[in-house]
């Protein structure tokens, strides 16, 4: 595995200035400059160190349980008349792909000599993954979470607390994920020396989008090897992943972006419908703007105020999208689809009944678009099953007819 692979020849990976095409950059106030600059100068160097890589790989193997299986979903394949494989990130420790990144960043934070870890979380998945690695490494952990989300996601709040983290409610603005991110950034401004901020997605100022994508790139690295064993070719015809900020998609796409024969499909949350006023389909509803220090597509009012998105899935409920994905969208390299709340619920039930796997609501968005792709019987399709559905049981029960 090479998380420090040289991507400088790629059309789709970050350039030396921190941009993906016109997207990305680091629109940070001066107070954050020393922290972000320290990371920018050191992240690739640290990630290319063999000792770092060995420790990262060992933890992914023994602690997270990687490689995650690439499972041939026979009954799902029969239904959609193609060869459908599920990349089982749901089987990771803590139940989602998020932990790949938190393991990487906590090792990086230790090498930077940081003593205190902060993170933002929406549904609580990234918060739990961060609290987990902080317990593992014996570092102080503070998780910012919108007070509305704290109400909605009580089990994950309890998990974080049991793991020793302090959960701080974000009470500003809409009191959800974007506000939790604002509060985490403010904490970092106020604690510029001893603190590392573990961002949970491929968002934020450069180098975060690239760094997080590299830690998550283990997903596509494994897909290549596993497909080679199973089909004789590293390349699938399709890779499908859901996109909120876009970290599981970034990981699932990473090693395929420059292989034109592999179709990349990103599925956003349409909420109650793209034009319903309750949606999180950023590529459809957003314009170029700046959110959390990154220039990207952004849902906003005509005078540039960031608007609150809607999705049934808290993990996709973000008004921006990682700059990598904005670039994949603009260049047409990835096809962007969207799934409504109802379509995703239906897809979650379908997978449960066909394969005995209850997916996270986020991942169900990706599954929901299988029906819209022009699949051929010999097409190899990989769906990134980014997380398991335990956290969504309450929602599923509510919609059980």
């Amino acid at each position, binding site marked *: 595995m090479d998380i420090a692979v040289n991507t400088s020849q790629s059309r789709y990976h970050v350039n030396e200035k921190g941009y993906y095409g016109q997207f990305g950059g680091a629109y940070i*106030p001066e*107070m954050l400059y020393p922290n972000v600059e320290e990371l920018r100068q050191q992240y690739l160097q640290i990630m290319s160190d063999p000792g770092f890589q060995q420790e990262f790989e060992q933890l992914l193997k023994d602690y997270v349980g990687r490689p995650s299986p690439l499972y041939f979903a026979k009954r799902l394949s029969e239904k959609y008349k193609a060869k459908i494989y599920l990349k089982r990130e749901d089987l990771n420790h803590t139940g989602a792909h998020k932990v790949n990144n938190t393991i990487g960043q906590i090792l990086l934070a230790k090498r930077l000599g940081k003593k205190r870890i902060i993170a933002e979380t929406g549904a609580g998945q990234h918060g739990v993954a961060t609290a987990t690695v902080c317990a593992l490494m014996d570092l102080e952990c503070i998780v910012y979470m919108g007070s509305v989300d704290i109400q909605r996601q009580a089990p994950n709040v309890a998990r974080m607390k049991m793991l020793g983290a302090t959960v701080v409610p974000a009470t500003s603005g809409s009191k959800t994920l974007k506000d939790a991110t604002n509060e985490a950034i403010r904490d970092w401004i106020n604690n510029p020396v001893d603190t590392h901020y573990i961002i949970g997605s491929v968002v934020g100022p450069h180098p975060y989008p690239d760094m997080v994508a590299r830690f998550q790139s283990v997903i596509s690295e494994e897909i290549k090897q596993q497909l080679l064993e199973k089909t004789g070719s590293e390349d699938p015809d399709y890779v499908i992943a859901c996109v909120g900020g876009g970290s599981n998609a970034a990981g699932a796409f990473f090693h395929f972006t420059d292989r034109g024969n592999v179709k990349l499909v990103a599925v956003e949350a349409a909420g109650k419908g793209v034009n319903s006023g309750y949606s999180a389909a950023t590529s459809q509803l957003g314009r170029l703007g700046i959110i959390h220090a990154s220039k990207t597509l952004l849902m906003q009012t005509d005078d540039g105020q*960031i608007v609150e998105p809607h999705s049934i899935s808290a993990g996709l409920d973000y008004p921006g999208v990682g700059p990598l994905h904005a670039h994949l969208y603009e260049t047409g390299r990835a096809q962007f689809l969207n799934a409504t709340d109802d379509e995703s619920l239906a897809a979650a039930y379908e997978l449960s009944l066909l394969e005995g796997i209850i997916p996270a609501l986020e991942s169900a968005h990706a599954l929901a678009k299988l029906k819209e792709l022009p699949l051929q019987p010999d097409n190899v399709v990989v769906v990134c099953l980014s997380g398991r559905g335990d956290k969504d049981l309450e929602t599923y029960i509510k919609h059980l007819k």
Partner: protein
Amino acid sequence: MNRIDQLFRNKPQRILNIYCTAGFPALNDTVSVVEALQQSGADMVELGMPFSDPLADGPVIQDSSTRAIANGMRISVLFDQLKGFRDRVSLPVILMGYMNPVLQFGVENFCKKCAEVGIDGLILPDLPMDEYEHEYKPLFEQYGLHLIFLVTPETSEARIRKIDSLSKGFVYAVSSSSTTGKDKVMADQQVYFARLKAMELKNPVLIGFGIRDRGTFETACTNSNGAIIGSAFVKAIENSTNLQHDIQSFVKGII
């Protein structure tokens, strides 16, 4: 000559710069607040263009921004309010805000409007120095707008020198690595301010963040050309029923 430069030429010391969010406490209070500040003896005014997600600001200014947006404040409304204000206001006025609303308004259009109504400078905390240097500098200069940069205790000397060379008007020294409105012991910052003073920058230095009363203002003035007060002022007028009176007594409490 730019009004900011003129001010520092006439009064190099003890500059009192007051921040207020535009459209706050009520939508149409913007120009009244600026006029009252001028009458009360403030030297400069920084008007905040409210943004939904003000990363570099603390809760007081964020709340005032949320309220101003709810009041109907937006950049186009602000320019309408400022039309003709130069007939009554002579002190330098700076607009402070975040890049996204400015991008949506159109950067060139924004600069043009600033020049039309008589704005002297801009503080855009999330516009990085490199971006400014390579993208926007000629534009801002064409419209006579001074871009004011922040420096912090963690900013290296080399970077402060670079910022000083790119800045016009003054350098905004953040008194601690903090968001606005945070209480930090001023004494801890004296070493940093003294270091800044010893660097003999080409620009005057104003100290901001954490200045809230006469004592903190006096301390700031010993090592700089003056100070900026934001959160404390916003708090002082948030529930005001007599702006003129409350602004007067706030400023008198400082100078």
